[in-house]
């Protein structure tokens, strides 16, 4: 695979993580346990959508520079090809709304169902700790778009992590029931955290070319962060160290198909329209 495609894949990994995470968090809006927390979660969700839009706009630029053959190597999407057949450039929404699950590069963690507040908090906490480490590294990326997104997102993610860490601690050290629910959520979701640090071909290429982050370094930071919050929360890291993977290669859990069916339905049912 050539460097252009690696770069595009790297951007899509980042953007798809944010979009699918936000899509799940958006499901909470109006259904939260406390009105103030409903608002807080929506804020996080909005920040993710803001960042993902910048990344998809950039991804669209890169897609528009591909040759038809490169494009067809990257995506299996008749709907996206339609855009090019009409002679139009792809836009952010085309990238988000016209690809099918196998062209999505997000990690499996973000597509998992919200289940309850504890599962959602676990997912947010793992992702926030990851994004903090990631953006801190990407701030000095030699790609100015990535560096810009990282710089802007860094302020936001510090707040997200503070919020989710506080909830992990509050639930872990709250009541007996909340402790048990929080620990169960961690146990159930733990197997999806390894993939964050499992380098794909795009990750390797990005690090070597100086625009991506070093996942080994990220993992060290992440582990320390998780351990320190778990200690305060009186929670433990699960014994089972088996890790699921496949998302970065487009092999997803059953959930992603449903997420996309819902998210993309208007674009699919009324193709080519402006909303």
């Amino acid at each position, binding site marked *: 695979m050539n460097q252009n495609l690696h770069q595009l894949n790297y951007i899509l990994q980042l953007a798809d993580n944010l979009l699918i995470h936000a899509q799940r968090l958006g499901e909470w*809006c109006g259904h939260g346990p406390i009105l103030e927390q409903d608002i807080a979660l929506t804020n996080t969700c909005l920040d993710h*959508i803001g960042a993902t839009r910048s990344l998809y706009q950039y991804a669209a630029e890169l897609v528009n520079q591909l040759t038809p053959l490169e494009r067809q190597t990257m995506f299996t999407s008749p709907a996206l090809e339609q855009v090019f057949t009409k002679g139009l450039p792809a836009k952010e929404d085309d990238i988000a709304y016209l690809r099918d699950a196998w062209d999505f590069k997000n990690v499996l963690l973000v597509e998992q169902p919200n289940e309850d507040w504890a599962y959602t908090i676990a997912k947010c906490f793992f992702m926030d700790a990851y994004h903090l480490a990631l953006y801190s590294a990407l701030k000095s990326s030699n790609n100015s778009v990535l560096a810009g997104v990282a710089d802007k997102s860094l302020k936001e993610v510090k707040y997200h992590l503070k919020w989710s860490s506080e909830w992990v601690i509050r639930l872990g050290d709250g009541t007996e*029931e909340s402790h048990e629910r929080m620990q169960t959520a961690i146990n159930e979701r733990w197997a999806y955290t390894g993939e964050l640090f499992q380098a794909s071909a795009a990750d390797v290429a990005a690090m070597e070319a100086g625009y991506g982050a070093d996942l080994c370094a990220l993992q060290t930071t992440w582990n320390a962060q998780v351990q320190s919050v778990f200690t305060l929360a009186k929670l433990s890291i699960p014994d089972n160290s088996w890790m699921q993977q496949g998302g970065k290669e487009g092999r997803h859990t059953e959930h992603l198909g449903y997420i996309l069916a819902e998210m993309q339905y208007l674009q699919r049912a009324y193709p080519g329209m402006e909303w």
Partner: protein
Amino acid sequence: MTAINHQEHFDHKIDNDITIEPRDWMPDDYRKTLIRQISQHAHSEVVGMLPEGNWITRAPSLRRKAVLLAKVQDEAGHGLYLYSAAETLGITRDQMYEQLHSGKAKYSSIFNYPTITWADMGAIGWLVDGAAIMNQVPLCRTSYGPYARAMVRVCKEESFHQRQGFEIMMQLCKGTAAQKKMAQDALNRWWWPALMMFGPTDDASPHTARSMRWRIKRFTNDELRQKMVDVTVEQAKVLGLTMPDPDLKWNEARGHYDFGAINWEEFNNVIKGNGPCNKERLNTRRKAWQEGQWVRDAALAYARKQASADGTPA
């Protein structure tokens, strides 16, 4: 001061446009009416999150998704301001929730209608937030201070919502035939319920005179409804949509549009719980509340532990 003095003092403030503040003496009925009105308003904001929340996961573009999320979030914020304003009258948020969940407290009937197409996001912003603004702008000068101040913040955001809703409609109306049909269909379904948002006709609303005297209402239901009709007809022309009212006609003598009869039987039925989504909306709120109980318990237990560790009584 004697009770009579209190009453005189209160009346004097009302007559002179001086706001009543939480610590001031106020007649029992004034307090009760306000609690009912403000909590009903707060519940409407929170239940009102549901019909639009429906479309967050299905918004047709990332920009629309962000705008819709922010809008629904604003409504949560309105709920918060209003619950806080009501709390200054001596009721807790939990008590108000209890009244909502038991069905004792009402919320705006409009939210018992379903949102079935994307155009409903446009129609709600345009018409429902539009009607809310007409109802609420006068309340920025209402006699009860905390309510008036809450309404100032709420109204600023509502007018933003109204513009966004109109913009969704505009985009659909200049789109394809299918999109325009979607917009017209949404107007057809939301128009009459939006007019019902102003409440029963003046001759059927017994408390209007008293509420106007107390300045917790500043225009009658029919006055506001007429204003809504006059404004909306012009906006529909800009969109190129047809008002779903064959009796709608400009009345030169009155300087207003005449409009057709409102189906009050439908209105009363929806209030009684027979609207298309009453059960669903209430059950959704109850479910969120029940499923959140352990979370709130945990937050409380943790706060207590922290407080006792600090040596301060919880």
